């Protein structure tokens, strides 16, 4: 019993972290572009693109479930780790983009400009100056991604069967005709514990997030 639960924990851990990491990396780049450069395509402007990202989360998840199911079964990724990671990226990246756009908008544009004047090309300005000053934002975005990824039951339930089973699904599955309350309580506690640890660790950085030295 214990070893089976451990494999579920590791699977959930892998899926959540991989999807969160990819979402943060891509989302941060997208957010920086949306915050600093002007895009024009027909009537589409920066705000519309940002809204497009957020709009992915407007629909209730149930609406997405059937398209996702058909999509994953077509490309043969149903009940696989990769398939689940792909779905989670779709769900998590809007959160990362949304948080980071707002964060970058609050980083003074003059900071990038100063970096450019001081001899950085736009890429160096991003990773040498803007990124080190965006750590609080990155932590918030990362925390949200991990939480939303970890607690997801719905997609894990629908898109996986036997090969891959995430922790929340397993916890619920324990609730059968004769409920083993001891196992259920223990596994429920284990499934909540990471979030509590994350919250405690991250809380310190959240309050520290300031850019007061950049602009007074």
């Amino acid at each position, binding site marked *: 019993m214990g070893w089976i639960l451990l494999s579920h924990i590791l699977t959930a851990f892998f899926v959540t972290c991989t999807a969160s990491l990819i979402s943060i990396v891509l989302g941060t780049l997208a957010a920086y572009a949306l915050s600093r450069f002007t895009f024009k395509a027909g009537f589409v402007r920066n705000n519309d693109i940002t809204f497009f990202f957020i709009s992915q989360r407007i629909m209730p998840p149930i609406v997405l479930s059937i398209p996702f199911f058909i999509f994953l079964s077509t490309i043969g990724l149903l009940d696989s780790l990769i398939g689940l990671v792909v779905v989670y990226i779709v769900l998590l990246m809007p959160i990362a983009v949304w948080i980071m756009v707002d964060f970058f908008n609050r980083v003074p544009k003059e900071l990038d400009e100063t970096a450019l004047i001081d001899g950085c*090309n736009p890429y160096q300005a991003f990773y040498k100056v803007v990124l080190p000053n965006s750590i609080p934002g990155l932590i918030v975005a990362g925390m949200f991604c991990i939480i939303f990824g970890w607690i997801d039951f719905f997609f894990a339930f629908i898109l996986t069967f036997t090969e891959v089973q995430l922790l929340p699904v397993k916890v619920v599955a324990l609730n059968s005709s004769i409920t083993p309350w001891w196992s259920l309580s223990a596994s429920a506690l284990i499934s909540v514990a990471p979030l509590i640890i994350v919250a405690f660790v991250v809380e310190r950085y959240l309050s520290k997030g300031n850019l007061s*030295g950049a602009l007074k």
Partner: protein
Amino acid sequence: MNLIGENITYKPDDQFHLNDVSFNFKKGNLYTILGRTLSGKTTFLKTIAGLLNPDSGNLSFEDNDFIKIPVWERNVAMVYQQFINYPHLNVYENIIFPLKQRKISEDQIKKDVEESLKTVGLVGFENRKIQELSGGQQQRVALARSLAKKAKILLLDEPLVNLDYKLREQLREEFKRIFTQGLSEDTILIYSTTDPQEVMELNGEVIVLDEGKVLQKGPAKEIFENPRTLKVAEISNDPPMNILKGTKSSEKLSFENILINSPSHFKNLSDQSYNFGIRASEIKLDNQGEEFEIELAEISGSETLLHLKKGDSKVIALIEEVMNFKIHEKVKIKFNENKLYAFNKNEELVSSPYGVYNG
């Protein structure tokens, strides 16, 4: 070998930010750009830095087409009116940032940083965090960073605006010292400000900018003595020059039922209506003078600013002592006619106490 701009125009929306601006900046000189807020000063500096590309016009430096060179290869330095430093680095790391970017040897970096820290008076603060410094110190770090670069073009965009009064006075004096000692012969220094007093103190070549257009160019003294138009006279004086509509008839000037003698430098003016200009400091309290009503009296430091009213005309007088006045009190003032300016209907200067300006 100079920094030359030709007919630079920048119009991102329906308003001109720069309108047909041309200039020729020589090395080793100080240039000040004087203009009110939103007059295009920052746009001007950003264009030179390369952060903005003008819609039309040429910009060349040392015979290179500057517009084709990206910002990060231009080797310019800029200090903003907000104190922009890298908050994740300490003072020392802030100053070496641009030097490391240009791959200068360690020994040279050490020497340059020490020198620039000494110039701005921040020795001993190397390991402080930026957030631990006061506003004035933060601006000094920004200045040290741009000095250490030894850039050929140094741009300062209203560097004193966000500081408190005392610090501003102090830094202004230090700026003057730094500009006269700390700069090498082949640096072009461009300083923008809204404050006429700063322009006069720095005493460089002045460019008066308004709505993106260059109104007048010349040495600070020339701008002060002979503002070419009424607008320049308003921009280059603080408080702005008083403008009174009036007429000249033979030996008398009249405005708002006031009759005063025409000064000798108005001799050659024909008899017609003019806009007369007079500085606030040339209006004195005098029992023989004209009666005005006080609208507002401000005491600043050792001076009193009087906002006066008579009929439709309003004037501001600067009294060089601290006096207490009541609002609506009547006072008698006298205009120093020997310091009167005359502008014609097109708002151009036709006569000034320092000799007529011709073209």
